[in-house]
C-alpha cells in the first residue's frame, strides 16, 4: 500500500511468513480444537453484529451507499442466522459419524471423524463486505481452524471496522485480519495454507488457484457468471416482477453474484413483462431513480466506467428501453432495461454486475435452455413458470450452481442447501453444515478385530486362497462359507 504511516507497517512476504509461523504454533497447541473455544468465538461473532449493528450499517453505507434495509437483510441477518445455526448444531457436526462395514472387512467397525484442516485463508469480496468475510469465517471457526481474513480493500470503512471488531472480540492468537490489496494478498498467497476460501471474480480466482497449486492447497472458489431468468407467460406477473426486480436492483443495484443478469422470455410476452417491470421500478424508486435513497451506488469509478462502456457499445445503442440515467460524480446508476441486444454485444458476454437488464426474446422458451448452457455454467439460474414439464426440463438440462423456480436469489438464505458454483462459477460450496465441511477433513477410521483372519489374504498364494478371496470380496456370506468348507 502506498501510505505507510509510522504506526502501520507494510504487510510483505516477511510479515506473512511470521504471521503463518505464529498461527501454526497456536494451531499446533490444540487451542482451536475444543468445543468450548469454538462456541466462545461464535458467540463473540454474534456479539459483533448485535452490539455494533449501527457501526456496521454506517460503514457499509459509507462504502457502498447501500440502503439500510438491504444491508440488514443481506448481511447482518444472514451472519446472525449462520452463527445461531452453528451454535445450535456444532455438537452434532463435531460428532463422529458411525458407518456400517461389510463382510469384506469382518470383523470391523468404522466411523468418519471430522477434523479441522489447520490454518485457513478467507478472502472476501466488496459487494457484501461483512457477509462474505464473516460467513465463511463462521464455518472455519466452527470447524476448529485458525483463520486469516482478508476483507476487500474496495470497502475501506467496512474492512477497517472488521479488523477493529475482530481484534477486539475474537481470539487474536488464532483469528487475524489482514487488510490490504494486491500486494498484501500476494504476500498471503505465497504462504502454505491448509485451505483457501475465495469469493470474487473468475480472473482473480484463477490466480488464487494457481498460487494454491504450488502448495497442493485445496480451494473453494465462489465466483459468478451471467445468471439468466427465464420468464414464461402463465405466471402471476406482479409477484414475479417484484421478485425479479428485488433480486436485481434491491441486491446492491445488481452488483451481486446471484443477481439476475439477463432475462429470456417469449416475443409475445415481452411487452407485458416490460410494462410490469417499468411499473414496479417507478413504484420503488420514483420517477427519478437517481434521487432515490433506496438504490445502492456503484462501488467505484472503475466499475462505473465499465458499466458505461457496456451501454455505449454501438451494438446496443438503439436497444435501451428504460433508464440509462447516471451520475458519475456520485456513482449513481439508474435501473436500465435493454431489449433484444445482439448476442455478441459486450453486455451479453461479460457478467454485468450492475443495474443493466437485457431482455432477450425467443419463440419457444425451451429453445433458450441450450442458449443458457452454451454460455458457461452460472452461479444461479431462475425460471418463472407454472408449467410442470418446463420446470422438469429446466432442472434436468440447465446446469448452474443452484436453481430457483419462481423466485430469485432466495436460495442463498436457505442453510440446508449447499451454496456454490460449478464450472466457471466456482468450486466447492458452503452455508450451514456445508460451511463446516468446507473447512474440515473427514477422516476415515477403521477398527479391525482379531477374531478371525483370512490367511487367504497373504502369500504364499494358491488357487484355493483365490476362491476364498473371491467370495470375501463379493460380500457374499454364503460364498464365504462354501469357500471355507471347500478350503478345509
Amino acid at each position, binding site marked *: 500500500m502506498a501510505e505507510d504511516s509510522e504506526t502501520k507497517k507494510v504487510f510483505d512476504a516477511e510479515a506473512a511468513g511470521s504471521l503463518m509461523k505464529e498461527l501454526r504454533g497456536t494451531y*499446533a497447541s490444540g487451542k482451536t480444537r475444543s468445543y468450548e473455544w469454538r462456541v466462545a468465538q461464535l458467540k463473540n461473532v454474534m456479539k459483533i453484529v448485535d452490539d455494533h449493528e449501527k457501526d456496521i450499517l454506517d460503514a457499509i453505507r459509507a462504502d457502498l451507499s447501500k440502503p439500510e*434495509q438491504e444491508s440488514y*437483510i443481506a448481511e447482518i*441477518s444472514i451472519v*446472525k442466522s449462520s452463527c445461531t445455526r452453528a451454535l445450535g448444531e456444532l455438537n452434532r457436526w463435531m460428532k463422529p459419524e458411525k*458407518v456400517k*462395514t*461389510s463382510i469384506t*472387512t469382518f470383523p*470391523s467397525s468404522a*466411523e*468418519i471423524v471430522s477434523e479441522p484442516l489447520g490454518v485457513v485463508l478467507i478472502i472476501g469480496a466488496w459487494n457484501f463486505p461483512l457477509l462474505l468475510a464473516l460467513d465463511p469465517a463462521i464455518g472455519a471457526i466452527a470447524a476448529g481452524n485458525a483463520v486469516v481474513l482478508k476483507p476487500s480493500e474496495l470497502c475501506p470503512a467496512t474492512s477497517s471496522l472488521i479488523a477493529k471488531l475482530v481484534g477486539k472480540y475474537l481470539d487474536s492468537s488464532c483469528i487475524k485480519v489482514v487488510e490490504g490489496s494486491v500486494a498484501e494478498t500476494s504476500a498471503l498467497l505465497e504462504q502454505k495454507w491448509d485451505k483457501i476460501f475465495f469469493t470474487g471474480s*473468475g480472473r482473480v480466482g484463477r490466480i488464487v*488457484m*494457481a498460487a494454491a*497449486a504450488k502448495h*497442493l492447497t485445496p480451494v473453494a472458489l465462489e465466483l459468478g457468471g451471467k445468471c439468466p431468468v427465464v420468464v414464461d407467460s402463465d*405466471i402471476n406477473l406482479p409477484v*414475479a416482477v*417484484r421478485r425479479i426486480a*428485488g433480486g436485481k436492483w*434491491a441486491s446492491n443495484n445488481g452488483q451481486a453474484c446471484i443477481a439476475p443478469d439477463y432475462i429470456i422470455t417469449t416475443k409475445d410476452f415481452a411487452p407485458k413483462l416490460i410494462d410490469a417491470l417499468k411499473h414496479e421500478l417507478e*413504484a*420503488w*424508486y420514483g420517477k427519478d431513480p437517481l434521487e*432515490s435513497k*433506496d438504490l445502492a451506488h456503484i462501488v467505484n469509478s472503475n466499475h462505473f466506467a465499465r458499466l458505461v462502456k457496456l451501454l455505449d457499445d454501438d451494438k446496443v445503442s438503439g436497444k435501451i428501453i428504460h433508464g440509462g440515467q447516471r451520475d458519475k460524480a456520485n456513482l449513481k446508476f439508474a435501473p436500465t432495461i435493454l431489449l433484444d441486444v445482439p448476442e455478441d454485444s459486450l453486455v451479453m458476454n461479460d457478467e454485468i454486475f450492475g443495474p443493466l437488464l437485457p431482455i432477450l426474446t425467443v419463440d419457444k422458451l425451451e429453445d433458450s435452455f441450450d442458449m443458457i448452457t452454451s454460455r458457461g455454467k452460472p452461479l444461479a439460474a431462475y425460471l418463472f413458470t*407454472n408449467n410442470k414439464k418446463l*420446470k422438469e426440463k429446466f*432442472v434436468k*438440462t440447465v*446446469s*448452474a450452481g*443452484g436453481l*430457483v*423456480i*419462481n*423466485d430469485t436469489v*432466495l*436460495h442463498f438464505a*436457505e442453510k*440446508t*442447501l*449447499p*451454496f456454490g458454483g460449478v464450472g*466457471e462459477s466456482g468450486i466447492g460450496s458452503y452455508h450451514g453444515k456445508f460451511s463446516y465441511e468446507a473447512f474440515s*477433513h*473427514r*477422516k*476415515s*477410521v*477403521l477398527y*479391525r478385530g*482379531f477374531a478371525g*483372519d483370512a490367511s487367504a*489374504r*497373504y*502369500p504364499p498364494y494358491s488357487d484355493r486362497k483365490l476362491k476364498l*478371496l473371491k467370495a470375501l470380496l*463379493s460380500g457374499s456370506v454364503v460364498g464365504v462359507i462354501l469357500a471355507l468348507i471347500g478350503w478345509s
Partner: protein
Amino acid sequence: MAEIVKHLEPDLEELRESYRSGKTKEASWRKSQLKGLLTLLKEQEKDIFKALEQDLGKHYAESYRDEVGTLTKSVNLALSSLKDWMSSRKAKLPIAAFPSTAEVFPEPLGLVLIISSWNFPFGLSLEPVIGAIAAGNSVVLKPSELAPASSSLLAKTIPTYLDKKAVKVIEGGAAIGEHLLRCKWDKIFFTGNARVGRIVLTAAANYLTPVTLELGGKCPAIFDSFSSSWDKEMVIKRVLGGKFGACAGQACIAIDYILVQEGFAPTLLELLRSMTKKMFGENPRETKSMARIINKQHFLRLKNLLDDPSVQSSIVHGGGMDEDNLFIEPTILMNPPLKASIMTDEIFGPLLPIITLKKIEDSIEFINSRPKALAIYVFTKNETLKRRIISETSSGSVTFNDAIIQYAADTIPFGGVGESGFGRYHGKFSFDTFTHEKAILRRSLLTEFWFRFPPWNDFKLALTKSAYSFDYFGFLLVLLGLKKNS
C-alpha cells in the same frame, strides 16, 4: 504420439457431444456401461492377470485381491445403488419458507479426465471410472505408461466393452499428459506423486477445473506391545501383508516405516523375520509371493536409498538386490538415521525401517513433525492410545490393527489431506466426486413476503428482523402494530 495429438481435439469433441446429447445422463446408459465393465473384468480376467504379471511380476491371487476383486465389488455396488445415488435429496426448510420445497439434485460434471498410476494399473484406473460413469459423465482415461502391458490391455478392451463415443483411453507418457492438461475438463482425477500433482493442479487453475488428488506420503505403522501370541501372529501377518504383500511396498497406502517402543523392538524384529520367511519363502521372485520393482529407474532409486553407509549398516534382514530381474528381497532396517533419504522420502518399495522410541506415545509427536500421510496404522489394544491418535494426529485415514484393508471398505471415504492430497472416493464417494450437487429451491407464486422489497421503511425492517430470526410471535406483534423496530 503425433497421431494421438492430431486426433485429440476431434476425439474430445466427440466425447463432449456425447455428453451434450444427454445420453450419458440416462440411467440406462450408466447401467449398461457398468455392466460392460463387469463383463470386461470377468472375461478378461486371465489377460489382466497376465498383464500384471508382465508389468509387476504379481501373482494372480494378489492381482485378484487388490485389483480385479475390489473392482468387481465396486461395480456391483454401483449397479445396485445407482437409482438411490441418482435421486434428489430433499432439504428441510423452516416454516417461514412454506410453501417452498428444496432439494439437492446430483448432476454430472461433463467431460472428466482420469490419470492413474502404475502400481495398481487396473484398480487405480477403473475405480475412478466406475464413479465417473455412475455419475453420468463422459470420460478420458490416461493409464500410466510405466505399466505398458496393463495400459495396452485397457486401451484394447475398453472400446470393446464400453461406449467408445463416451469413454476413451488415451495412452502415453508425460508428453501426452501435457497435451491433455492443456485442454478444458470439467474435472480431473489424478493418482500419482506430489510433484506431478502440482503440475496437474496448476494446469487445472487455468480453467477453474475442480481436481481430486490422490497422492502418497510416508504411512507409519505404530506397533504397540502385544501379549497374546495369537494376537502377535495375526498382526505381524497384517504388517507384512501391508508392506511386502502390497505390490512389494509400492503402494500409496503401504506401511512405509514402523514405530515401536525400544524394549519391544527385538521381539518385533524376530517375529517379522520369521514370518517373512514363512510368508514369502526362500525364493519370493520365483513363487511370485512378492511383486517386483516396476522399472530400472525405481530400482536404482531404491538401491540409492541403501547406498548411504549408515543406512547399509542398519540392515538387519534381506538387502539382496537382483538388478537384471528388478527384484529386491524383503528388507528390514533397524534405526536408519532420520536424516537419510530413506526416512525423509516416501520409500515406495520393499524396504522396511523400524524406528525405536522411548515411549510408544512419542509416536504422536514423531508423526506430527512430518507431512500428513495418506494413512496411519496403529497396532494396539490400548484404547487411550487409539483415542489420542485419532484426535492428536491428522492423516487421510486411520486403521487400527490392520493395514491396506481400508481400501476395500465402501462406506468410508478414501483420500488424503495436506501433502497426501485432497478429495476422496470409493463407494458413494466415487459417485459424489464426479457430481455437482445442484441446489434447487421451488417457490410458489401464491404468497409473498412483501416487506422484502423497497421502498424501505421502519415497519418493513421490523418485520424482516422478526422473520429472519424465525421469531414468529414477534413477527405477529410487529404486524399487528404491537411492536416497533428498536
